[in-house]
């Protein structure tokens, strides 16, 4: 099964609806699409912006490695991951993941897996800029994110088991 994979790392915004339309255009085999968008929060008005630093080259390569792994684990018909860098104001888009499959379970699980792995493996770092003009600190990594990624260490996702 071939799964077209789209990976982009960009400063500019993305259009989630347009990306999904591009994935499904001309296809009649896709029965389920799950799209996740991560946005910048103001943290109750405390933040003026987040600054996303990334490792050019490795960011794209690691996102591709994670997407390839998702395509190996689930019967996917399309996979898109877009991550922005640079300053992003509250309400702005940070990351987009779209997973398409014949049935919903694989699409849900693959999108969930991709986000968990992107958060813990893709080389991006968030720095806070305060609404009061202060240069805030770097966001600390959360143990909860590592725990979420570790959920996928079991070799077979539920959808794959059901299909056997």
């Amino acid at each position: 099964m071939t799964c077209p994979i789209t990976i982009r790392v960009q400063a500019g915004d993305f259009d989630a609806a347009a990306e999904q339309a591009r994935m499904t255009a001309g296809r009649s085999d896709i029965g389920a699409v799950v799209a996740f968008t991560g946005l910048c929060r103001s943290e109750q008005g405390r933040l003026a912006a987040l600054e996303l630093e990334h490792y050019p080259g490795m960011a794209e390569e690691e996102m591709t490695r994670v997407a390839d792994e998702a395509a190996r684990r689930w019967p996917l018909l399309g996979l898109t991951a877009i991550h922005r860098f640079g300053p992003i104001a509250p309400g702005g888009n940070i990351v987009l993941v779209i997973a398409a499959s014949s049935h919903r379970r694989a699409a849900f699980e693959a999108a969930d897996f991709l986000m968990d792995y992107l958060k813990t493996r893709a080389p991006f770092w968030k720095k806070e800029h305060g609404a009061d003009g202060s240069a805030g600190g770097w966001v600390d990594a959360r143990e909860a994110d590592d725990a979420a990624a570790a959920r996928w260490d079991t070799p077979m996702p539920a959808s794959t088991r059901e299909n056997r």
Partner: protein
Amino acid sequence: MKLVYFAWVRERVGVAEEVVDLPAEVKTVAGVIDWLKGRGENYAYAFEHGAFIRTALDRKHARQDAAIAGAGEIAFFPPMTGG
């Protein structure tokens, strides 16, 4: 060897990247960190909790016990916080 730094590791070191001549006895990523810590207060500060720092060899995640032979670029950065 090209060394690159990101996020607060970059800020503490004071440069984003540099090219260094590593002594022949430095053979692992952890060895590079130990060697860097001896180069000045900025490095000692950046790597004060050296085991906590994540590393990559030629843009692939690597453990600190990985051998650096054959690599052209070593990256040092905090745990990732994207997504």
